[in-house]
């Protein structure tokens, strides 16, 4: 469609324009701190409540108020929830970016806008829906100070009318959003209604996009990855949480604090079964987590790239002393003054080998809300089984955006606390050797400080110790020690979650991806098949170190595209480190690193191009 500025009274679709149902993206451009998040989440939730698969991506600045922010809502009857490059609908509320926003629209898109911005003049191939926001907000919000916050809710009503979102669902979503704040809910509801009524009387639907009730979200939940990881940590039985605020990880511990206060205070004594401490920096946060892990607690911290960098020394200490703890890295673009509120898989390579000397660390790679939950639990078990720091590598897209998910499964197996000896066991054995590889898996037995047995005590220090944890700088003792740590990493290889592999019939092209990229890959696989007859196999990595299945997948295919959301193809580098020449020769790279969540079209275009098909 390459038309037309439509006057409000016209109502017919251009010839040949079919109705498009439950397949659109809405981009909302607002100013940070203007209450737009509420309006956007209500919109998202209302569509979700109508049974339509939906996802929301918040593209926000590193700023509290005043800078441009965009929120993309995608509704997809096919269940695609990756970000899309283009939107069918734009809501232009930010004077600063409005012109650019409109110019970036694809022809035929629709634009709801604040009529003061006079955007019509910019394009004649976009459908414009002007709305007098200021005029509408006055009567519904007598308190002028609150108008700024309520104003955005008007576009929810306008979109509800234009797209067919049921107002009852907007109302329900509002109630959910404001919970007990009845007055705020009412103000916002009045604003939404004002928008709806205005659109009903003054705007004529001139685009083909609709949402209609379906039944694909029943029994599902809406949650952010950080909240899912917080819940996972609580059900993993975490007892010591030490953290330092950093975007985009802060909401993980903040949500955890809320849940723990509610569900982890002992009913009989009124005492907490946990300790949560906001540390003075990331170094202290990890130092505390390691101190707690040494003393036997299930401990964790959460951070982002700059925090991981600060933790580097302590991570090496934890690796060599062999202390369990869990570190959540909610990855983002670096550095601190980079684009801290934009997503990236930016810490893969540096984290895998973090610290000095020979160090390697297990990393879990969740792609979904359920995995944020289950892998949090896995991480605590693994950390204690392997007696080492374990990383859970999320990213901003996963951690801070709202995702649809099936409800989380309650953990079926009991907590696995690893090889810990009691006083009685030590007494019976007549002592123990902390770093002796008794079982051949590289993991020794430990005792916890406070264990009341003379022979149970031991002194922890870096790598300069023998099997009895006694100071030694002997070359053979050192080699023995680090070789055992390498054996332990082989044990990790067997214990971490394996990849999820979907083979194709042709086994020519393979795709390896991980984390949030998964959702774009799923959609891209369909595009490749539909548009280019490429039937690609897919291996989704769920952890580092990689197990044999990953190598077998590479060997089965002619060409394997490794998708990274970083510039330097970090996962590809790790695969190269662990693969032989034949495997390496098959690996190719697809990278996406502009700070926005990867979209399927970008992947498809890149792979098609590398395949020489266009």
């Amino acid at each position, binding site marked *: 469609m390459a038309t037309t500025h439509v006057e409000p009274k016209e109502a017919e679709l251009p010839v040949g324009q079919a109705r498009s149902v439950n397949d659109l993206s809405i981009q909302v451009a607002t100013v940070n701190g203007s209450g737009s998040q509420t309006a956007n989440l209500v919109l998202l939730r209302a569509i979700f409540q109508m049974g339509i698969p939906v996802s929301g991506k918040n593209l926000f600045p590193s700023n509290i108020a005043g800078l441009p922010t965009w929120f993309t809502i995608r509704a997809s009857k096919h269940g695609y929830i990756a970000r899309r490059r283009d939107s069918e609908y734009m809501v232009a509320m930010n004077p600063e970016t409005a012109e650019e926003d409109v110019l970036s629209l694809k022809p035929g898109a629709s634009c709801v806008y604040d009529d003061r911005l006079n955007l019509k003049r910019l394009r004649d191939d976009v459908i414009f829906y002007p709305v007098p926001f200021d005029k509408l907000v006055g009567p519904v919000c007598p308190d002028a100070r609150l108008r700024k916050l309520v104003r955005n809710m008007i576009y929810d009503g306008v979109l509800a009318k234009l797209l067919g979102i049921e107002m009852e669902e907007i109302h329900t979503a509002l109630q959910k959003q404001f919970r007990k704040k009845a007055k705020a809910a009412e103000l916002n509801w009045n604003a939404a209604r004002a928008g709806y009524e205005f659109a009903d009387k003054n705007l004529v639907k001139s685009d083909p996009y609709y949402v209609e009730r379906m039944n694909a979200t029943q029994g599902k939940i809406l949650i952010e990855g950080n909240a899912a990881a917080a819940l996972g940590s609580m059900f993993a039985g975490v007892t*010591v949480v030490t953290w330092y605020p950093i975007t985009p990880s802060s909401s993980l511990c903040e949500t955890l604090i809320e849940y723990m206060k509610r569900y982890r205070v002992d009913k009989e004594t009124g005492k907490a079964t946990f300790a949560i401490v906001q540390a003075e920096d990331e170094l202290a946060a990890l130092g505390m987590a390691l101190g707690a892990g040494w003393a036997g607690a299930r401990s964790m911290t959460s951070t982002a790239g700059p925090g991981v960098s600060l933790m580097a020394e302590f991570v090496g200490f934890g690796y060599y002393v062999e202390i369990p703890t869990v570190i959540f890295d909610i990855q983002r673009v670096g550095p601190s003054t980079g684009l801290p509120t934009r997503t990236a898989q930016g810490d893969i390579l540096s984290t895998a080998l973090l610290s000095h000397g020979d160090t390697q660390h297990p990393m879990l790679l969740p792609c979904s809300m359920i995995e944020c939950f289950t892998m949090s639990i896995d991480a605590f078990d693994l950390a204690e089984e392997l007696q080492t720091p374990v990383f859970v590598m999320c990213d901003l897209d996963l951690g801070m955006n709202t995702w649809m998910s099936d409800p989380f499964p309650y953990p079926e197996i009991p907590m696995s606390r690893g090889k810990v000896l009691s006083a009685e066991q030590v007494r019976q054995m007549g002592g123990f050797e902390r770093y002796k590889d008794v079982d051949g898996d590289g993991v020794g037995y430990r005792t916890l400080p406070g264990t009341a047995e003379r022979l149970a005590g031991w002194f922890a220090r870096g790598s300069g110790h023998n099997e009895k944890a006694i100071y030694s700088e002997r070359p053979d003792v050192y080699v023995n020690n680090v070789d055992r740590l390498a054996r332990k990493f082989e044990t990790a290889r067997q214990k971490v979650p394996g990849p999820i592999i979907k083979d194709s019939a042709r086994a020519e092209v393979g795709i390896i991806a991980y984390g949030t990229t998964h959702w774009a890959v799923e959609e891209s696989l369909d595009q490749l098949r539909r548009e280019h007859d490429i039937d690609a196999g897919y291996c989704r990595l769920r952890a580092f170190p990689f197990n044999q299945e990953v190598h077998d997948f590479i060997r089965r295919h002619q060409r394997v595209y490794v998708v990274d959301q970083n510039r330097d193809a970090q996962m590809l580098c790790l695969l190269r480190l662990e693969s032989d020449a034949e495997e390496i020769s098959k690996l190719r790279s697809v990278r996406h690193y502009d700070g926005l969540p990867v979209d399927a079209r970008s992947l498809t275009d890149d792979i098609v191009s590398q395949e020489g098909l266009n």
Partner: protein
Amino acid sequence: MATTTVPSSPSAKTNRIGLEVAQYKGNKSTLCAGCGHNAISERIIEACFELGIEPHRVAKLSGIGCSSKSPAYFLNTAYGVNAVHGRMPSVATGALLANHHLIAMGVSGDGDTASIGIGQFVHLMRRNLPIIYIIEDNGCYGLTKGQFSATADIGSKLKTGVVNDLPPIDTCALAIELGATYVARSFSGDKKQLLALVKGALSHHGTSMLDVISPCVTFNDHEGSTKSYSYVKDHDEPIADVSFVPFFEDISVEYDPGTTTDITLHDGSHMLLRKLSTDYDPTNKGEALRSLSDSHDKGEIVTGLFYVDTQRPNFIDLLNVMEEPLATLPEAKVRPPKEVLDQVMQSLM
């Protein structure tokens, strides 16, 4: 006035929990012969023996440096962590969060505390974590061969002739300012005073910060050093004669109301301060800071218990955690039942 109390034990060789002093010893020291740090280890051994501390409850914690090696030289059957440079406070904090029944014995140095570790030191003091934090203070980096630390006095000289022209950080003043509740300075060569202060620290309920001047015999015990044995001996000005009476002993024989101040510690033990020249009140923060400042002006090294507050809740009190160590809580206490997950899931639908 007796400072070392005789334990009320069945035999002279064992303490009240039936252990011999040998059972509080550590590995053979690898520090230089005559190092002040070794004397401090000996006082720790004596204090723990005399108070009948259970070694398995002790968590020995240190950072990096000569000082931080010393936890290997006492309480061999205790548990220990030789952590990373300047970051022992965080490891100690974590250990106590996991198990608040542990007796945390932190040993640091002046570089480990006042230079690289000042950030964590500051926050440790502020939290009033129940820990004994000993600075083995020699004013220099021994393990890297004698560079100045941030506690080196202005005008003091390295062996190589380099003069320090920056003022020192007074860790005691800093600790008092920040909220530590038992702050003292002593000298590694003053057996009597140091033993009483360590024993008092072991009975205290919050952060006990002991800055112990401990001359480095190899790099900082020469003319021009303000932390040499001879300099400290000449300039040591005790504010009071410190004595300690553990909770299991009768203090009546010690108590002389005319000349002593009696401080009752959390576990019922008593610190008795026999006044010297001035009326020194160790519960008065302002006076403590003033006295430290005055001593700097006079070029004296004041030793003794500067400040004590037995009332302020410690960090663990504030967290309101279970009496049982968090580390060993059973699964039933730390993994909520399925109904809780169902309830949360329902709220997200």
